[in-house]
């Protein structure tokens, strides 16, 4: 089960819980699994079937390239962070 | 950039006639006027290039007559002139920091005066050195005006239509005299003075006391500011720290700066005190060192 770090601004949905475990082969499935435990999570993270604009998913320390399709391993650590560009 | 005509007269009479036309502007080095026209800060229907008028390019020093500085003479000629470097160091201080090398090649001292910027570097130095402006009027007459009376407001001078600044005259240097110009800028080049200070003084033969002194300020009033009382306070004094402090305080009192992006009024007043003291010390060293 992947370990998901709940963004602080979503912890109103987790009753303050900082992390949660969720099963899924990719980020989309992980979010669906989170939705089961914490209703309302999905629309906050991936409205309209894509990651919320300006949000990047980081799996095991690597910034994801495939959005919701980024694959997630059984022991993966998943973060949702502001997307970063650069100068 | 607005459209305008261009003329390059070769004698003073033609120049005066052209400059008498409505909307005519004089061009010497062009480092101010071209930018002002381009940025719509000054209008011009006709630009009169004065660089080909021989009389405006005279640069001559005579131990008895003093210095004749033609209105169109570019800064580098003044700054590189050995006798001017020896006798008018305060003028050289000022001239050699008007812009970088590229500006030095073009900008003229006369133009710096006629542009009448309150922050012009050359003007406080010229005032301190008792310089006067020799003007050819439209009617062909010559007038001589002390530089401290030349500017009438930001960008405004006493030059009327058809009048041409011919040259600046600086009296010969007295023995045991020294001068200096200091300006404060945030960078070390390519800046407009936050404050500028020109000083000139003469010591007695023993070099133990001050005979006379003149102090002028830049960027602290609508025009470059002559502060006679500050110089007078030094006359007859041994130029002790207390004397210098008093002169600096009088200069500060006379300064009426504004606050803008180059510095607040308070900061400018503070700098006047600092720079007057520093400039006086340099001028004294020069007067003693000969």
């Amino acid at each position, binding site marked *: 089960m992947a370990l998901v770090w709940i963004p602080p601004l979503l912890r109103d949905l987790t009753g303050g819980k900082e992390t949660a475990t969720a099963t899924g082969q990719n980020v989309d499935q992980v979010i669906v699994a989170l939705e089961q435990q914490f209703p309302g999570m999905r629309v906050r993270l991936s409205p309209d079937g894509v990651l*919320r604009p*300006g949000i990047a998913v980081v799996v095991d320390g690597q910034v994801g390239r495939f959005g919701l399709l980024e694959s997630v391993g059984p022991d993966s650590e998943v973060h949702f962070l502001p997307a970063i560009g650069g100068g | 950039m607005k459209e305008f005509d261009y003329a390059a007269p070769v004698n003073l009479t033609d120049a005066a006639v052209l400059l008498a036309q409505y909307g005519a502007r004089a061009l010497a080095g062009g480092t101010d006027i071209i930018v002002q026209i381009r940025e719509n800060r000054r209008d011009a229907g006709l630009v009169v290039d004065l660089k080909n008028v021989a009389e405006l390019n005279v640069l001559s020093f005579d131990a008895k007559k003093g210095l004749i500085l033609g209105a169109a003479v570019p800064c580098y000629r003044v700054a590189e002139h050995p006798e001017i470097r020896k006798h008018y160091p305060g003028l050289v201080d000022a001239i050699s920091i008007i812009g970088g090398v590229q500006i030095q090649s073009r900008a003229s001292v006369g133009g710096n005066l006629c542009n009448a910027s309150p922050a012009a570097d050359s003007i406080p130095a010229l005032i301190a050195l008792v310089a006067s402006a020799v003007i050819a009027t439209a009617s062909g007459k010559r007038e001589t005006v002390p530089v401290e009376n030349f500017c009438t407001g930001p960008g405004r001078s006493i030059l009327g239509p058809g009048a041409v600044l011919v040259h600046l005259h600086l009296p010969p240097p007295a023995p045991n005299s020294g001068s200096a110009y200091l300006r404060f800028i945030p960078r070390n080049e390519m800046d407009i003075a936050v404050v500028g200070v020109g000083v000139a003084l003469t010591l007695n033969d023993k070099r133990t006391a001050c005979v006379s002194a003149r102090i002028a300020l830049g960027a602290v009033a609508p025009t470059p500011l002559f502060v006679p009382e500050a110089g007078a306070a030094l006359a007859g004094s041994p130029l002790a720290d207390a004397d210098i402090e008093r002169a600096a305080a009088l200069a500060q009192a006379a300064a009426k700066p504004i606050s803008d992006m180059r510095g607040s009024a308070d900061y400018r007043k503070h700098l006047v005190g600092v720079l007057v003291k520093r400039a006086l010390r340099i001028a004294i060293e020069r007067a003693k060192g000969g």
Partner: protein
Amino acid sequence: MTTLANGFKVIGTRPIRHDGVDKVTGRAIYGADMQMAGLLHGRILRSPIPHGIIKSIDVSKALALPGVEAIVTSAELTDPGNRIAELGEGAVNLKDLSSNCLARGKVHYKGQAVAAVAAVSPNIAEEALKLIVVDYQTLPHVTDVRAAMRDDAPLLHDDQVTESLGQPTGKHSNIAKHIQFKKGDIDEGFKQAAVVVEREFHTATVHQGYIEPHNATALWNADGTVTIWCSTQGAFSVRAQVAELLAMPVSRIKVVPTEIGGGFGGKIRVYLEPVAAALSKKTGKPVKITMNRADVFEATGPTPGSYIKVKMGADKDGKLVAAQAYLAYEAGAFPGSPIGPGAMCIFACYDIPNVHIDGYDVVVNKPATSAYRAPGATNAAFASETIVDELCEKLKIDPLDFRIKNGAREGTRRADGPIFPLVGLVETLEVAKRHSHFLSERQGDKETRRQGDEKMGSSPCLLVSLSHPLLPRGRGVASGFWFNCGLKSSASASVNSDGTVSLVEGSTDIGGSRTGIAMQLAEALGIRADEVRPVVGDTDAVGYCDVTGGSRVTFATGWAAYEAAQDIKRQMITRAAFIWSVTSEEVAYENGSLRCLVDDTKRLTFKELAEKLHATGGTIVGRASVDPQGVGGAFATHIVDVEVDSDTGKVTILRYTAVQDVGKAIHPSYVEGQIQGGAVQGIGWALNEEYFYNDQGTMANASFLDYRMPTSLDLPMIEAVLVEVANPGHPYGVRGVGEVPIVPPPAAIANAIYNAIGIRMEELPMSPGRVMAKLLAKKRA
């Protein structure tokens, strides 16, 4: 070719850049140099007010001016609607992007584009601008971030509500976004602290300051295709933006990146390209638009001004136990400040168990901010690294030792969650600690003192200092972090019959990157750097490439070149096998030559085989498109000595040393150049650069005269020390190097000023007036 100690033959050497001769002879063609028959010149009419409603625009008088051929306003651009598009470096709101090219109904800052004219000469186009009559209804404006956050502040966008990860806030606000990071228990953390320091900081809006103004030349063809030549950090990004704004398919747009005169993040968003295209469509002629310097300052860039409050605590042993930050960044007219990276970088140098960070993206009536070298990180580091210096002072611990003790390293969990892979912060600190600069006598050793005095004596403008030979001097250090990024890159390389290789890559080259990319191809093939001819391709000539930004090009496009080389090697092996009538498995490619494993007499150098290609099946082209992970973050530690004129408040940089983990320096000279240039931009930010706004909401210093970037006379040599902690995520260990060097300077200089005069500067820039005000206040106290 000789092999270097590190096992490389090309990487780590310093060849002459391939585009060098063109650039030292004036032949290189930059955007503004475009000349073509019938070329029209475009100029932009800009808003004279910071905030207002456009009631009407009358262009009739301007159109009547002889020489004027066309005028466009936003009416001629398709309204993209309120949509978000993913464009290269990130998500962009197309309504905002479009309004920033030509205002739609409302102007949000002084200098915003309102209309554009095409005429037969630049001067006539400028004349025409004065004849366009625009009727504005002026609205109250706000240019300060904290004022804009107040409930009674004038709203820039009536419908804007704060984006807070979908948390409904309900009310309209200038606060476009709120982000938050939490780690551990902040209150518990501060309870464990023996020393706590808290301060508030303000930083001014600053500009990237590239010397080349923005430009674009467009030619709209009768077949409905358009070609755009422009100075951009990303040709494909320009293509995507223009396609969205003009509602046309990307295949109908060709963007040709000319040589580019600096970007630093400011030449990613389009300003002129769609407008030039619209004018060309209207006139049927090529149209070139160039900005003047005032346009560049008032309508492009800048990077946000900010308000930052930081509180940090350490226990008695000097271990950081808690850190809290509140950051509010000015987005400018439209949402999108780099608040995210700012908040993620502020404590990134340290391993801190308890952290709480709040960040706010706030719109104000200033130009829409753009990326600028490590966007958001410099503002943040100025605050946190100043606080760290104060903690060290209170704990009486050496600032480098403190950073070594608390520094982030492999395995450290960042405040925003993820864990650092192998990184080189501690290595930079160890090197800095042993460096002659840090070991030299604190108050300016003889060497620096001599440097300083020469400087003073040499130019008349420095007589001020000359008359005061012994001014207070101090030394400061600071560290900084930047993420760097990977993103997508493509390259293709064809083997020529003379054994050279023509490389086409898609990353516009702002600082010699085409050579760094060619060197990686050469290394992989075992040939010389000068045997590769790299060119930057247009959007029809090469595969998709993301922008030149995020310190990604040498990493990602270099990787594409490396993969293209592997592709060439595979094909060369097959070809040699064919010639020798053996199987591919029986051929080895070693050090730029091919060897038959079953017959030792059979050998071909790369050049020899290249000569045989045409006769054995034709040329070989290697291709690669990559989107690599394994990005290595960059850390830097800077040391600076300053002198403070205690009578004027003027700060002089006497000596500067920048130590940085560069992963692997492909071309060390250009790596040093990135570090030196970044450090000097940081020095300018620290000392004198700022947007000075008057109460009419107008930038009063929109020129290089009064926007004071450092000149050569304001600086000493900048010593760049390269520390190589190879990035395991890249075939050659490359880490991005371009951005992080701008991060430490303001804090390092602030710490040096404190060391010199005992005053903590809390505002950027630390200009003479601000330093003097603090000195006088201290005297009075």
